Every structure is written in structure tokens, then in C-alpha cells.
């Protein structure tokens, strides 16, 4: 193994893992406030297609990412309205959001399939993904607002009794999650594989969801987990290309197996669950009860 080869592998791992970090950290903030949004995949796709369309029309990368994040805010705002104000079931609504996103993105992108674009260098976003994880971590554990957000996720009734607006805080957390998922999507369609193809996120939204559980709801662990998931995939490709015998099928399912193992480990001990999962996750909040 020479240095160039290792540096090359590192580059590929960084580029491939960044969308998982964005989507994972976005979903983590949403879940920390006590809301489970299963619409990650759908929001990523809508983010990916809107960035691509705007780039084709205007030629401006800035506008592309701006509109993409806006689309994430709109998608997650819709979700937030349904689950926070109409008290709809979070799991069903999230799944519906994914299905809606898949369909909407296919419809919007129909005439843009196969339009060639110039991809953007991914390195700004790679660095930004690290930064955002540390910012979120700082926000959670070093600021009062972060403490309040976590409190809302642990016990919305207590937070409400203390005078914090549970609905507002959850709304903002969901919007942050949506904008991060859209950013992950636009990174995929503009930097990672510069093209628009239907369903091109290919299940990364679900991996991001698994990642949050794998990380036991800790921001730095999302980063670590994402790089384990991403690194293992690229590593097994390298071993295959070197001619070593390797069960590639196994590595395709590895993220999910790892998540199940973590779930089993943390749920084997009631205390561990209490320390990890936000206690009010998926519970609807009825004001005034």
C-alpha cells in the first residue's frame, strides 16, 4: 500500500460519507426534540431535484443550494404542521412524506433527466459537514437553548410547565432537520454524482435514520457512525478490486445489522434506554393537559 492509494481511498470515503452526515445530524436534532420524522429519504430527493433544476435553469450554484434548502423547509414544514398542529401519527406521516417526496421529485425532475451539468467540488461541503456536527454538539451541551430543546424531547409536559413553547421548539427542530436532509440531497445531485435520476439517493435516507439510533442520539457519534458505515463500504470495494475474496452482500446490509445490534445492546438495559433515546420521542403533545 502506498501513500497515494491510501489518500485516494480517504478522499472517496469523505466524498461518499458526507450526505450521510448531513441527513443524520438533521434527523438527530429533530429526534432530540421528541419528533421522529421518517421522511428523510423523501426530503433528500426533493432537495436533490430542486437543486438540480435550479442549477440547470439559472446556472447559479448558490441559488441551487438556497432553493434546495428552502424546499427542505417547505417539506418538513408540511410534516411539522401535520404532526404538531393536527396531531397526526408521526410514523405514518413520516412514511407518507417519503412516499410523497419520491413521487414529487420524479414528477418535477422528469424533463431534467439526462441533462448534463458541471459538478461542484465537494470539499467545501465535506468540511462544512464536520463543522455542523460540532456546532450542533456545542449547541446541545453548551447553550441554554440546546438544553431547552433536549428538555422538550425528554419531557414535553415539564418543559411546557416551565413556560417553554414546546410546539415552537419542535417546529424549528423539524425545519432544521428538513433543511439538512435537503442539503444532503442537493450535495448528491450537484457534487457527489452530478446528475438527476429518479430515486438517486438509493436508500441513504434510511441509512441516516439507522445512523441516529446507532449513534444513540449523540452528535459526535453520528459522525463516527457515518464514517464507519461509509468507510466499510469503500473499504470492501477496495479489497474486492485488490482481488481478495469478500462477501459484498454482507457489507450492503452491514449498516442495518450494526443498528440492530446497537438497538439490542441499548434495550437490554432499561437505564441505557433512558440515557439514550429522548423519552418523548414520537409522543404527541397536547397543550393544556
Amino acid at each position, binding site marked *: 500500500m502506498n501513500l497515494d*492509494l491510501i489518500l*485516494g*481511498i480517504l*478522499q*472517496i470515503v469523505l*466524498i*461518499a460519507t458526507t*450526505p450521510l452526515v448531513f441527513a443524520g445530524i438533521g434527523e438527530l436534532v429533530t429526534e432530540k426534540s421528541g419528533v421522529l420524522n421518517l421522511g428523510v429519504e423523501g426530503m433528500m430527493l426533493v432537495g436533490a431535484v430542486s437543486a438540480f433544476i435550479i442549477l440547470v435553469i439559472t446556472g447559479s450554484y448558490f441559488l441551487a443550494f438556497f432553493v434546495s434548502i428552502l424546499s427542505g423547509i417547505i417539506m418538513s414544514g408540511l410534516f411539522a404542521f401535520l404532526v404538531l398542529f393536527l396531531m397526526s401519527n408521526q410514523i405514518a406521516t413520516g412514511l407518507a412524506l417519503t412516499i410523497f417526496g419520491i413521487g414529487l421529485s*420524479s414528477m418535477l425532475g*422528469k424533463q431534467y*433527466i*439526462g441533462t*448534463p451539468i458541471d*459538478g461542484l467540488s465537494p470539499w467545501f461541503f465535506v468540511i462544512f459537514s464536520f463543522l455542523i456536527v460540532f456546532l450542533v454538539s456545542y449547541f446541545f451541551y453548551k447553550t441554554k437553548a440546546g438544553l431547552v430543546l433536549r428538555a422538550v424531547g425528554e419531557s414535553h409536559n415539564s418543559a411546557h410547565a416551565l413556560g417553554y413553547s414546546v410546539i415552537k421548539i419542535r417546529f424549528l427542530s423539524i425545519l432544521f432537520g428538513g433543511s439538512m436532509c435537503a442539503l444532503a440531497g442537493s450535495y*448528491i445531485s450537484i457534487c*457527489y*454524482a*452530478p*446528475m438527476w*435520476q*429518479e*430515486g*438517486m*439517493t*438509493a*436508500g*441513504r435516507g434510511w441509512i441516516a435514520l439507522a445512523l441516529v439510533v446507532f449513534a444513540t442520539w449523540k452528535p459526535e457519534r453520528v459522525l463516527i457512525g457515518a464514517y464507519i458505515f461509509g468507510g466499510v*463500504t*469503500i473499504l470492501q*470495494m*477496495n479489497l*474486492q*478490486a*485488490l*482481488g*481478495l*475474496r*469478500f*462477501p*459484498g*452482500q454482507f457489507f*450492503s446490509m452491514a449498516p442495518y445489522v450494526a443498528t440492530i445490534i446497537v438497538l439490542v445492546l441499548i434495550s437490554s438495559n432499561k437505564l441505557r434506554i433512558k440515557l439514550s433515546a429522548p423519552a418523548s420521542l414520537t409522543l404527541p403533545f397536547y397543550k393544556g393537559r
Partner: protein
Amino acid sequence: MIRIITFLSTFLVFTFGSAYADPKKVGFIYIGPPGDHGWTYMHDVGRKYMESQLGDSITTTYLENIPENADAVRAIRKLADSGHDLIFTTSFNYMDQTHEVAKDFPDIKFEHATGYIQADNVATYSARFYEGRMIEGHIAGHMTETNTIGYIASFPIPEVVRGINAFYLAAAKVNPDIKMKIIWVFTWYDPGKEADAANTLINQGADIIVQHTDTYAPCQAAQKAGVYAFGQASNQEEFCPDAHLTSIEDIWGPYYAARAKAVVDGTWSSGDTWDGMDKGMVVMSPYNNKLMPASLIQEAVNMEVGIKDGTIHPFTGPIYNQAGELVVPEGEVAPDGMLLGMNFYVQGIDGEVPQ
């Protein structure tokens, strides 16, 4: 009022007009979206060709993004239940599902792409893509400078293994030092993962990328890294003009039109079709004359002629397997049975076919 009358008359013409003509309904099951510019795209091009040829005597429907699992049964059954007369299932792993539904609908004709099991109402069809792989291998053997070829493979099914072997045999013939690096990605469709695999292969020294997956992400990655690539299923030159040497194009239209016509005429019968370049089912995209020397293009064209008239066969003996056993004796060509079930690498390829 006029608007209502117009609406009603259009309505009547459409309902009764079509009922009178009794067009046959033809349905398609697609594994990906028709916009993938690869495998599904070419089936959709075939479907449109069929429509243009048969006009009002047929109507067509397609269901896209159908996974190769129990969902496929539901999708095929849905087409069967809604009165389709002919149903094309366009991926290898729809095999069991196609037969499961076909059993319940003996009057409906089914056509399963790249399959090998027939029934009274299930025909199979495929194209001899490996003929194109041979030409790609020949070109790659001449064009590579690092003597390293990167091959992105999808699933370890005979179709894909056959392509790898045909490619390698032709490449090693012109360049005995050639080495193949193969990555199995276990997906037909994941632009990100396909790009990762291409970049990994390039990083390991491959200067020609071959793919057996469905999007143009690998060709794009090759373009970015400044190496060559072969496209897949359709002409992908516009996405990677400085990397694209040629593509193997799948031309399904004439076959689809002929089979649909047989249903319209009532002459359809089950069978197995496996056509290649001679019937125009496999076509090479225009060779890139900016990248390839004219003499090499001429050799490729000559090979096409040879394959068409039968003087060249990609699997001509002597061919050995990895254990060194002679599988095709000198002077003979591999029988179709061996090709259809091919699950081993030929001698010279490192690694093993994943089980």
C-alpha cells in the same frame, strides 16, 4: 352547452371507438425508471417503437421501479388483472414472480427478459450482449496504458459473469499483461455507489472503466478523472464525451413489435429468443474517433462484421477455467447452454465469483 356536447361526443368516440377496435393491451414491468439512460430506458425506447409500429392495434402501460421481490408479484398481477394481453417483465430476477402469476392466467402471454425457464404462456428473450463485450475488450486491450481494467459488476448472475469473461478473453488476446479489477456493487441502480466504485478502481490504477450497472455515473467519474470508459445499454457519449469509447446498445423495439403483432394476429407462441448483432438486437454506439485511432476503429468494425456473419465467436476455444481445466476445446465454440449458466471466471481473472 357546446362544451358539454363536445365532451360527451369525445367521450363516446373514445369509449365505443376503442371498444370496436379492441386494441390489445401490452404491459411492461420495469426495474428502474425509464429515465435511467440505461437498461430501463432502452426497454422504454423499445416500447415506444412498438407503439409507433402497431399504432391503434395496441395500447401500452408500464410500471416502473418494481423491486425484484414479492412486490413484483403484486405488480405483475395488477397488470394481469387489468386485462393486459401481453406482459413483458424486464429483469432477470422477476423470473419466479412471472411464473407464479402466469400460472393463474393461462390466457395471458408473458415475456420474461434474460430468463431461461419457459412455460406455455411464458416466453423468454435476451440479447447476446457478450458479443459487444468482446469488442469492448478488444478496444480496451489496445487502449489501456496501465494494463489495468476496472469492471463494475452488479449481481453475480450468468449474464454479468458472461460479459466479464467475454471482455477478458478479447482483451487478453491483444494484451496478455492485462489485469482485471472487478467490484461487485450488488445493485443495478445507485449513482453514488457506482461513482464510488469507479473512483476506487481508478484510484487503484485502472485507466478504463467498464460497467454492468444502469446509470452513467461511472462514465462521468471516468471523465472527471481523465480515464476512458464504456457506456452501458444506451449511447452515453453526451454525458462523458472525453471518456466514452463506445457503448453496447440494447435494441428491443423490433422484437417487441414482432411479439405484440403476434398477439394481435393470434399467432403468439412461447419460446426462447436470444439474438445478437446479426439481428440488430445488440448494436455498438459510434466509436469515439477523437480518442481511438482509426485503425482500431476499423478493427472493431471488422469484428462486428465477423460476429454478424458467424466467423467470430467471443467464446472460441481453447478456454480454460480458473482451475486450469479445459472447458471449451480448441476450434470449438461454447454451447449456448454453457453460456446461459456461466458462473465461473475464465483463467486469468483474479478472484472468485461471489456466491
